[in-house]
């Protein structure tokens, strides 16, 4: 076994929450080993402690307890000596948006004291690796999300570090750029023999690492080769075919309640299941025949996670007055919608239609124009051109009555943090014109349905992440809207919370609520009735998940994943664009 560059033992770190004196155990006895020349991945949902662990190694934080050696040095005692020898790319890398690509690179070279001779040799390597050579004159602020991350990586690598620490380098990056970033990282490890530690909340990325440390709520669930985590689910993974005319989504929702089931997700029209016990050959589940499949890393992760946490209860939302049975016509109609900000066209002739009672997904990377489209639909932004109808009217110009038929949950928690859970609900109930007995009834309903009763008097800003989202959902459903808009509702949520969230959405749709949701998790498209893939302000493809997947049939004839379908669609569109250019 290669020498280890990082050795951490029983690391602990507690943060005090401001104001209420509560504490957060960011790290609760984590040990870690990073071997020279290897790629190690820190995997886990938001709040698992990944960033804290990386910051300890970079000498930016000191642990409360435990021992840590990075390149043989204690980073808490001699941070500068460690920092001189490592490269660290934080989640939000400090690029100067008003400087060009070259100027940013020069700045970091100056900061690290890289001599001109070394630069002449290093720059071409970095440019070739990141494919940024064509853009050296462009301002960093005008790069796409993926290119910014690549530039950040180039700036980190401007002087050859002995150890590279990457904190979620692929978060918010489109699948295409994500793949390119991983090619770079794997090249660094394989060809240049660099030791890399990277954190990620994408479970599929973990499979690329030599070793993974699976973190959850400050504790290590496993540290091993990724295949070993996958093997935990060996013999437990099966797929079920819901049969023609039945939706995979409702079957999946039903199966999640089964105590024998650890995990169930809709996958390519089928339902993928991880069972608590080994599957028997020829076995049937819910009256359907189960076909065994190769387990994935995520399956193993879910088995580990379920050992710690149960599925959220009470996710089966019942509206008291569900919307009237679907009238004819579309809930949302968008034709040739355009939005320009000065020179920049954020939304470029977008058209789509959402039927009543449908779950419609807008998919795409950050900056694709999803949120801008969304804001126009909700009447928050006037369009520059085109036509849009929500529940038969243009919300932007229609009155309060039209808005009363919509619910909206923003990407960021946007209720009043200083107010308690109950006060927030009271305010939004009044905003939607609920009063008297009705108002009390609806507030009680929200507290009950979202399991917020115990937190009624808690300032909503102090709620744990998952509860904040439930409160936001509760507030948006107080008036039982016909159409629910959800902007990136699952970003940053752990896999369990994400499954609970989609359960709620599924039950709402079954009761006739039209749901429009944006996401950059491609797998989540499987929960939607129909999706539209957006990139560069345009809709590149739309249809049912099965139709979209047909854009990319895997070479071996297997069902393509939504992610590879997305990449195929975007690549085809970009290739077409390049061909059209003289």
């Amino acid at each position, binding site marked *: 076994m290669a020498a280890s560059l990082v050795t951490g033992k029983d690391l602990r770190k507690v943060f005090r929450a401001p104001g209420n004196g509560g504490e957060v155990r960011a790290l609760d006895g984590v040990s870690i080993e990073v071997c020279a020349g290897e790629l190690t991945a820190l995997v886990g949902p938001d709040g698992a402690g990944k960033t804290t662990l990386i910051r300890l190694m970079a000498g930016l934080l000191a642990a409360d307890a435990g021992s840590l050696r990075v390149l043989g040095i204690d980073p808490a005692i001699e941070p500068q000596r460690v920092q001189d020898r490592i490269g660290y790319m934080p989640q939000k890398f400090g690029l100067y948006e008003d400087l060009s690509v070259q100027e940013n690179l020069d700045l970091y070279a100056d900061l690290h004291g890289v001599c001109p001779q070394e630069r002449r040799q290093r720059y071409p390597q970095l440019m070739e690796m990141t494919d940024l050579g064509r853009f050296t004159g462009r301002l960093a602020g005008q790069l796409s999300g993926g290119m910014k991350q690549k530039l950040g990586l180039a700036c980190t690598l401007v002087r050859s570090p002995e150890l590279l620490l990457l904190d979620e380098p692929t978060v918010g990056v489109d699948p295409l750029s994500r793949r390119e970033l991983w090619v770079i990282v794997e090249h660094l490890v394989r060809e240049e023999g660099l030791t890399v530690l990277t954190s990620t909340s994408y479970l599929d990325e973990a499979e690329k690492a030599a070793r993974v440390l699976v973190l959850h709520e400050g504790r290590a669930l496993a540290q091993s080769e990724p295949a070993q985590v996958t093997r935990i689910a060996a013999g437990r993974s099966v797929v079920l075919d819901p049969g023609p005319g039945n939706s995979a989504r409702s079957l999946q929702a039903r199966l999640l309640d089964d105590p024998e089931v650890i995990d169930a997700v809709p996958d390519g029209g089928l339902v993928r299941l991880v069972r608590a016990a080994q599957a028997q050959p020829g076995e049937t589940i819910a009256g359907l025949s189960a076909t065994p499949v190769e387990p994935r890393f995520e399956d193993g992760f879910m088995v580990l996670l379920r050992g710690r946490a149960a599925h959220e209860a009470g996710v089966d939302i019942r509206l008291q007055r569900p919307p009237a049975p679907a009238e004819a016509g579309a809930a949302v109609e968008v034709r040739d919608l355009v939005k320009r900000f000065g020179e920049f066209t954020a939304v470029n002739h977008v058209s789509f239609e959402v039927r009543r009672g449908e779950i419609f997904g807008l998919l795409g990377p950050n900056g694709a124009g999803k949120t801008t489209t969304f804001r126009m639909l909700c009447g928050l932004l006037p369009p520059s051109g085109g036509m849009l109808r929500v529940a038969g009217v243009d919300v932007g110009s229609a009155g309060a009555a039209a808005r*009363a038929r919509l619910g909206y949950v*923003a990407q960021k928690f946007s209720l009043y943090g200083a107010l308690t859970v109950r006060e927030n609900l009271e305010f939004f109930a009044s905003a939607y014109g609920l009063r008297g007995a009705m108002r009390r009834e609806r507030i009680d309903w929200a507290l009950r349905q979202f399991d917020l009763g115990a937190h009624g008097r808690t300032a909503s800003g102090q709620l744990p992440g998952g509860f904040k989202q439930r409160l936001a959902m509760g507030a948006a459903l107080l008036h039982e809207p016909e159409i629910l808009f959800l902007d990136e509702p699952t970003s940053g949520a752990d896999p369990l919370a994400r499954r609970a969230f989609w359960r709620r959405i599924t039950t709402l749709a079954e009761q006739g609520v039209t749901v429009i949701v944006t996401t950059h998790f491609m797998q989540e498209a499987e929960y939607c009735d129909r999706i539209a893939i957006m990139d560069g302000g345009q809709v590149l493809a739309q249809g049912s998940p099965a139709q979209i997947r047909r854009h990319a049939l895997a070479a071996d004839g297997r069902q393509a994943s939504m992610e590879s379908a997305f990449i195929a669609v975007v690549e085809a569109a970009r290739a077409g664009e390049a061909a059209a250019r003289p």
Partner: protein
Amino acid sequence: MLESLLRVIALTRKELLAVLKDRRARNSLLLPPILQCLLFGYAATYDLNHVPYVVLDRSQSIASQALLSSFDGTGLFERVANLRRQRQVRDYIDDRRALLAIEIPDDFARRLEAGKGADVQIIADGRNSNTAGTALGYAQSVVNAFNSDWRARHGLPGPPVTVEARAWYNPNLMTRWDMLPGLIGTLTMLQTLMLTAMSVAREREEGTFDQLLVTPFRPPEIMAGKALPSMLIGIVQATGVLLIAQLWFRVPFQGSFLTLYAGLTLFVLAAVGIGLVVSALCQNMQQAMLFSFILIMPFALLSGLTTPISNMPRSLQYFTLVNPLRYAIDIAQRVYLEGAGAGVLMPDLWPLAAIAAVTLAGASWMFRRL
């Protein structure tokens, strides 16, 4: 209509809760006006109660002694030195040991005895023109008193004209008396304007403004819901200053509270209107804060609180016409000190109403466009 009203009440309640639940926000709204009021009440005064002076008495006569003792007898003038040489005067004035220097010529007594006029030279430190002017005024009145006294004692006829000065509404011409009522508006203005501007900017920064806009709230309702709590808080602050002026500094209140509060309500409405315009222009709290400060300086300087508006250059006087603080100070001082009624205050009230109408309409228009 009822729906609208209920929504505005809900928003007002939410705003008040958000401000009053936060201990820091609560303190920053109530403590500064009280502290500033005490500070201004004690520190901001043009009244002189201690004038150090030096004397170069070349006469060394009974007459000169009599004149000087009438200076010393006021309790206001303190003789810090008797000088021998003219040169020394400069030393005392330069290092501010004396504010005035009184030079009595050697023929002073002789000329007086002869029934002729005598000259006394008073040199003042003009580096602070305000103080120097006041001190010279005091000195003049001491000399006047000495003159009448001398004439009476020597059987000479009195001067043909004497001035019998009496100041109405502030008999002792105490700065505090006009300063404190002026503060009722001044201290309220900054906080009301900033509170309003920040409350929208904060919502915008935290993303809650979008959440608010997708509810049935109409822009005018949001404005009303933002304006009311700021107005309420502004009125409470004004009341705090009023109470301190009356109960702590004992400046007697002559007018009607109804008139005063009617004027104040119009004034905070105008201030809130300006705050809403600022908030419509600003994307975040930092901008809102900066913008408020940029506005508040000229508003305070050109309000007439410290320097009379009639002394300002004509072009600046025109600017004061759109300054709500100018009218608020006038209203507060006149109601407080002279007991003016609403009728005579009309020239102050209607401009406030006009400023409020224009800013509120402007803010409403800008909100609609965002």
